[in-house]
């Protein structure tokens, strides 16, 4: 299969970053609020940055979204989330812990500085983006509580608010949206809680005010608008597992060798490319195998899809 290789000239143009920094400066001067409270580290990268693929244009990352709470069409979240209120917002961390806590998003942002992470984002539908997220390793937040010996998994619950979220008025999924990770996956340094993207506040359609990103898993694992993080003993049943258990497994690691029952996962379409661009090959663990393959040693990934 012919595949598109990116030339070095196609990697993020420098001007993009210059604009972004200027934007940050402006934000600081003009509004002086929300954003300056977020302590952003851009230099201290603790992961291998993206070098092969270019960053998806901001326009597409923020107008082409799967966020069924706001509607099932890709353009719905952008259209229907404009008035969504994300402040005040509390996140409760509880379950099998010695000291459950409730923190506001502001408190979390002040406590843990965000850094930029440029990750590949692969949707189970067979398309992908490269997004510069702002966020912090989830483990920094989870360390605020002491899990008991019973805790084996972490369950994430998104907000339930059908008054503000049109899509929740229909039983498309069993609301509120639920997702889960094994504790070692949740504690992995690549797993981040996202507070922004492209140097900006996280837009509502991308899961504001706080969402998960697990870059080696299909996009739906990365729950949006999280209100509860619960340590649990048993493997949680995610909303998609509940909707179609033979199609969406608990692990849902990006895997070109295990096809979705209805379509192949061997290749993906790059968002923002023109109509004549070919698909590119999907990489095992979305290209993060060096970092995460060890988590699944000895596991049959065909069975544990």
């Amino acid at each position, binding site marked *: *299969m*012919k595949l598109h290789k990116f030339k070095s000239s196609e990697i993020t143009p420098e001007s993009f970053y210059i604009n972004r920094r200027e934007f940050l400066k402006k934000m600081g001067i003009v509004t002086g609020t929300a954003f300056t409270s977020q302590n952003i580290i851009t230099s201290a990268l603790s992961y291998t940055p993206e070098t092969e693929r270019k960053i998806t244009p901001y326009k*597409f990352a923020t*107008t*082409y979204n799967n966020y069924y709470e706001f509607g*099932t069409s*890709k353009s719905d979240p952008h259209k229907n989330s404009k008035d969504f209120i994300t402040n005040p917002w509390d996140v409760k961390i509880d379950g099998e812990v010695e000291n459950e806590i409730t923190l506001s998003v502001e408190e979390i942002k002040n406590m843990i500085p965000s850094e930029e992470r440029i990750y590949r984002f692969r949707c189970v*539908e067979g*398309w992908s983006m490269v997004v510069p997220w702002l966020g912090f390793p989830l483990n920094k937040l989870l360390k605020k509580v002491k899990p008991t010996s019973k805790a084996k998994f972490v369950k994430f619950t998104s907000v339930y608010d059908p008054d503000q979220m049109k899509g929740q008025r229909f039983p*498309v*999924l069993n609301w509120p949206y639920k997702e889960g990770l094994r504790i070692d996956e949740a504690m992995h340094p690549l797993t981040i809680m996202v507070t922004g993207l492209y140097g900006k506040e996280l837009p509502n359609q991308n899961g504001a005010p706080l969402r998960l990103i697990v870059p080696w898993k299909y996009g739906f694992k990365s729950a949006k608008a999280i209100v509860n993080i619960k340590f649990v003993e048993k493997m949680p049943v995610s909303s998609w597992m509940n*909707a*179609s258990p033979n199609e969406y497994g608990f692990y849902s690691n990006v895997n070109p060798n295990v*096809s979705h029952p*209805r*379509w*192949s996962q*061997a*290749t993906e*379409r790059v*968002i*923002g*490319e*023109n*109509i*004549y661009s*070919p*698909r590119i090959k999907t990489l095992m663990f979305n290209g993060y195998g060096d970092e995460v393959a060890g988590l699944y040693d000895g596991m049959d990934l065909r069975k544990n899809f």
Partner: protein
Amino acid sequence: MIKIFKPTIFVLCLVPFIIIAYQILFNKLGAEPVKQVTHHTGEWTLRFILLSLAMTPLKNITKILAWIKYRRMLGLFAFFYGTLHLLTYIGLDYQFNLDPIIDDVLNKKFIFIGFAAWILMLPLVVTSNQKMVLILKQNWKKIHRLSYLIGIFAVLHFIWLSKTIFFEPLIYLIILITLLTLRLDFIKFLLKKKSVT
């Protein structure tokens, strides 16, 4: 009337093609251009299949014979958009790489049934002209009953490719069931009885 209507409807049937051609030429397809073209052509194929299937029931209900004059044209437009849909998938999406296409057709039921629907259209297209109607006589009707199967396959294709139960495929399913039910003899009988009394 038919002399004015038919060309007008022909041009109207081309509008979806003009829209997508414009979007391709002027780069207005958005984040996933290939998917956009695939969806657009696929959706219009399904609409034209259902429109062509609607003509006979409309004739029966309204007692206006003219509906039948548009049936062939609508059916041929279904084939036109269906072929564009198939070409988009083979040429633009998979760039004529036959291995993944064959793999898809054999292993993915929504692709298999979509492909089957297109194949079933071929005998209808070949036998669509007036000459063939005369040559085939009673067999022509039998061959063209394939259109019911094509309708069912096309709707299944849409249902099976959807991630969860969506409204759109369901709406098409309801329309299809309605159109096929109207062809059942006892329903026709009831309709006739009603119009007599």
